[in-house]
């Protein structure tokens, strides 16, 4: 047995203007899950503590919250793994959401982004090849199974640094779920789906892998890369900066073996996009003043032909 001190964020949007914290001590085995400790505190000590929960076994996705500074499912987190030396377990509502009551948040922005995907299969009408149902092979299904495990707990969304500065970004879960339909052979709206998620800032993913903490191992980070590749191979919204950036990086590495910083900036923003270039100019000026501008032209690395051969063999797209 151990004394677990739950340090809980308390707030009620109906009555409070600022949040406060309550520390509730419970005597339980230290391997108790954070959710069970909260349940115990609620039933035995303070019935007003509010949090979402249902299945208690990482299937429903309700109990995601910020635990000891990082977000995860309370039902899947043992107290002894997050306790500090004084036995304190700090619990807060998920970041990137408006708090509603204690650990309960307004989930609307998350659901809105999800419903924009039209998250249901949209197959073509029956045709001669498909007189009855559209079938999917086990191999094709394999690609979708991991994403289908998503329980929409919003852990990835809460951890996403891009969401925290730009709420227009679709977020990891929605992009991973877009992948689930984009790569489903039964669906007939692939291009529309890629265009939709591109409009919702697919290319704003910062490659930070914060969503690799997914409690269900959906790995949205890898699915985001898959959707970007789909956008490039299907040539959807190629005038956006994201695909231009990827393709100019590819071109410079094929050319010199190196990522040519100067060329990448021009190729992404647009060589003749004066307004765009002016916006990146202040940083350029600051760097120039310190004599740290990247070279205008890069000398290719030794044996760059080998690099070019790799690109050509793999038919890598470049701009």
């Amino acid at each position, binding site marked *: 047995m151990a004394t677990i001190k739950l340090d809980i964020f308390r707030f009620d949007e109906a009555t409070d203007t600022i949040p406060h914290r309550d520390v509730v001590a419970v005597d339980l085995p230290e391997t108790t899950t954070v959710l069970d400790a909260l349940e115990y505190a609620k039933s035995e000590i303070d019935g007003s503590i509010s949090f979402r929960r249902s299945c208690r076994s990482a299937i429903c996705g309700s109990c995601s919250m910020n635990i000891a500074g990082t977000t995860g499912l309370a039902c899947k987190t043992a107290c002894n793994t997050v306790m500090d030396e004084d036995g304190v377990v700090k619990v807060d509502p998920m970041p990137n959401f408006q708090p509603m009551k204690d650990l309960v948040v307004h989930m609307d922005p998350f659901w809105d982004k999800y419903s924009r995907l039209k998250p249901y299969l949209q197959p073509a009408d029956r045709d001669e090849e498909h007189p009855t149902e559209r079938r999917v092979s086990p191999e094709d299904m394999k690609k979708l199974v991991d994403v289908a495990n998503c329980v929409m707990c919003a852990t990835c969304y809460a951890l996403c*640094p891009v969401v925290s500065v730009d709420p227009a970004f679709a977020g990891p879960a929605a992009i991973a779920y877009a992948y689930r339909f984009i790569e489903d052979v039964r669906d007939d709206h692939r291009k529309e789906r890629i265009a939709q998620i591109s409009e919702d800032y697919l290319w704003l993913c*910062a490659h930070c892998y914060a969503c690799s903490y997914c409690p269900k191992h959906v790995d949205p980070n890898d699915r985001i890369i898959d959707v970007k590749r789909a956008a490039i191979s299907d040539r959807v919204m190629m005038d956006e900066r994201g695909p231009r950036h990827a393709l100019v990086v590819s071109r410079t590495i094929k050319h010199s*073996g190196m990522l040519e910083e100067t060329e990448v900036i021009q190729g992404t923003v647009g060589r003749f996009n004066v307004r765009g270039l002016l916006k990146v100019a202040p940083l350029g000026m600051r760097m120039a003043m310190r004599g740290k501008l990247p070279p205008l032209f890069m000398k290719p690395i030794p044996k*760059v032909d080998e690099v070019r051969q790799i690109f050509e063999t793999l038919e890598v797209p470049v701009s």
Partner: protein
Amino acid sequence: MSSTTLLPEEAPLPSHARTKSSQTKRYGFFPGCVAKESCKELFNSTMLLADKLGIELIELTAASCCGASVLNDVNRDVARVLNARTYAQAEALGLDDVITICSTCTGHMRAANKELVESEERMTQANAILGKFGARYNGSVTVRHLLWLLIDDIGLDRLSSMVVRPLNGLKVAPFYGCHIIRPESVNGWESARQPHSLEDLITAIGGQPVDYAGKTRCCGFHVQLEKDGIAPAMVGQNMRMAKDNGAEAVITPCPLCHLALDGYQADSAARWGRTDLPTFHLPQLVALALGVPAEKLGLNKHIIDPRDAMVARELIS
């Protein structure tokens, strides 16, 4: 001895001439693109530090870019095969270690290596292409960051004993950069959620580590061009936390983070208030503590001048 020539004004003093004894540990060295382009001060301070440590960094001069986390967006195989080519070069030189000085290089080169070593199919694919120009990778290389080398191979105690100019309690906020810790399945050298290697290092060289929630968050470098304002906002958010917790300077093992943190604090001031935290490349601060003269470390190349913070702690006059 490295095959790369240092800039004349930053070349090591004669008294620092590299040890050439057979005891000298030799490492393959992959500096990455940015250390050769806009952050040359990182490259130079790395070589000066290696010199002080008595290790030999052998630059893989024919290596290509690691893919920079962007090449995966255009093709699923190309970054892996490019990195296999780099590893083949290291193997041909008899080098097992490839040392990086960039978080993004570390993460992506380790990911490529893991895919190659764990999948015969992928290794065969890579070697089929490498074979066209007579190269072959056998899977013997380990990719490690210089930070890991300092802690595992040199050791904090030994490093501490080598300090001649301790940081006098300079309050340094560690900024890890994503790809040296995440995903944990690829890096796994320390906990991605609660890393402490930079803190340990700061302590070993006489500084005071500053804890703050932003230390494992993203600097926004990889989306700086995708939409205006995103990277400065991410920088501002993180630097605000560091500053509020008392930081006087930042240390990062990643030149991409360095470019964002050093470059965008001016832009984030409107929203997050002025932070103006000078940011050091990892080897700069360690080399400084080990006695490399400050003027050799390229500190004049930083947009936010670190010298005021250093004068305040009597590290330079």
